[in-house]
């Protein structure tokens, strides 16, 4: 067996400084730094304040773009929306992203279950009282076969492609075989425009609400958020979430995460997110362990920026010559 002999501490010339010292006031240095940083922060605050764009609401969305709202609602009902087909952690309708044989998204399971048809359409409509026509429509839909439901939603979905705005921000489609779907969507739109759907989609059954997963995913399935984001240059292909509304620096420290989404193969891969997370995981680990990585830990010695940093010290040594 071979034992590696430990290097004695005094053999490392960089362990302990044996040279000269000069006076230094730690507390004074920190106090001055705190004063300077406070002043700079105050100056930036006075000059630029901070952005605070009001959040979008389902009420606002359903009023400003009722056709997009109804189109999204139908896709939630027939299970074709982004959330409906997402997979974990919301449902089992997809396997999620993976890398090689590693299916972390699938393995961690469904932790925030969302049944888009029930949660976004059927349950909110069931909460409406005093509308016998809607009650009858809901009953017809729920008792119909899956094939029949699909035929109604597909026909209505296709008709929405040529829909026009009707009176009072309603959606007008040409007559067709939509079964009860047209009545259901009309009621859902009315509920949303009155602000009822914003509250109905909060997932907690308690009085206090803090989880906005359901309304946020519903809005993300439509184009209300994306349209605003495009105007604010926040889309994925516009260096996405590292930016912030307005002309603010945003999370510039996320530039390397965002960078990968701009280039192939990440920009065209269905598994882009897990690929970027893997690359950044490796990079982060390498960054933390730089001192232990051969070659990388020698770079500072090879590229003599240190001569600039310690130029006073080396000049003093030279004068000592």
């Amino acid at each position, binding site marked *: 067996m071979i034992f590696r002999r430990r290097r004695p501490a005094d053999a*490392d010339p960089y*362990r*302990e400084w044996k040279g000269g*010292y000069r006076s230094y006031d730690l507390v004074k240095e*920190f106090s001055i730094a705190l004063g300077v940083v406070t002043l700079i*922060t105050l100056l930036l605050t006075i000059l630029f304040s901070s952005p*605070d764009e009001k959040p979008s609401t389902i009420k606002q969305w359903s009023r400003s773009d009722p056709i997009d709202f109804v189109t999204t609602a139908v896709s939630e009902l027939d299970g074709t929306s982004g959330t409906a087909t997402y997979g974990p952690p919301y449902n089992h309708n997809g396997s999620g992203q993976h890398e090689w044989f590693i299916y972390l998204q699938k393995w961690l399971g469904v932790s925030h279950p969302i049944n888009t048809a029930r949660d976004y359409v059927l349950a909110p409509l069931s909460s409406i009282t005093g509308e016998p026509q809607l009650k009858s429509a809901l009953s017809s839909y729920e008792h119909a076969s899956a094939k029949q439901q699909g035929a109604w939603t597909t026909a209505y979905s296709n008709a929405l492609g040529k829909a026009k705005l009707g009176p009072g921000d309603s959606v007008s489609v040409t007559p067709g075989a939509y079964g009860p779907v047209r009545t259901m969507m009309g009621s859902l739109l009315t509920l949303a425009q009155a602000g009822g759907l914003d509250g109905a989609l909060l997932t907690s059954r308690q009085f206090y609400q803090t*989880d906005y997963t359901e309304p946020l995913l519903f809005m993300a399935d439509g184009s209300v958020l994306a349209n*605003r984001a495009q105007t604010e240059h926040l889309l994925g292909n516009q260096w996405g979430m590292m930016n912030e509304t307005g002309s603010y620096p945003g999370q510039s420290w996320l530039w390397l995460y965002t960078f990968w989404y701009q280039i192939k193969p990440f920009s065209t891969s269905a598994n882009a997110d897990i690929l970027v997370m893997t690359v950044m995981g490796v990079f982060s680990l390498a960054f*933390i362990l730089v001192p232990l990585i051969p070659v990388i830990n020698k770079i500072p010695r090879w590229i003599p920026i240190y001569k600039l940093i310690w130029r006073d010290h080396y000049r003093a040594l030279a004068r000592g010559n």
Partner: protein
Amino acid sequence: MSLVADRPPKRKQRSWTAAVRERAVAAWPPEKLLADKQPSYVSSWIYVFGVLSLAALAVCILSGLVLTLKGPSWWHDTGVGLFFNSLHLWSVELFFFFMVIHLWGKFWMAAWRGNRVRTWITGALAFVVSIPTALTGYVSQQNFDSQWISTQAKDAMNSAGVGAFFNLTNFGQMYSYHVLLLPGAVILLVIGHILLVRKHGVVPPFELEQKSPQTSLATQPTEPEPGVQA
């Protein structure tokens, strides 16, 4: 003949408290912890960015404390709230700015030399943990930025399985992470980093190529003062 004298001496009872105190005092004697002298080579603007990062973190924590005391909606409704939110935002921007320069400076100094690997690792970890700390702040703002960032960033979290227990669209959870758990981790890492800096001191310069014996670390322009290190 004395029986007592023949007994082996009782082993001295040593409490855990005493052991911790003795080790702490040995590692951080007062003259190291609050040093009033520093090595002669510490003479460059690059050294300022460590303490500037620390100062920015202090402003960030103080402004964050005011926002926490008043609750998450306060800053949307009042001018004073917006002022403190702006202080918080800009101190975060400055914290990252100073920290990045500090890290680059330490990289080019190869600041891990001389048994300082843990100092680098705690600093790098503080930077890495600061990223989700800021992200949870952005998604806790309760405005359009929060809506957009949370719905976009969730896909990266979900793809790695993290979304199962770290839900960016759950405001309550993100707020807890942002005001307690993650800043707590950053503060602990920064404290550990500073203690390691105080213990091991600032890394000495590289020795230059041995063209003459005078360029060695052993030969210095001033006389050493033993027992005091920055």
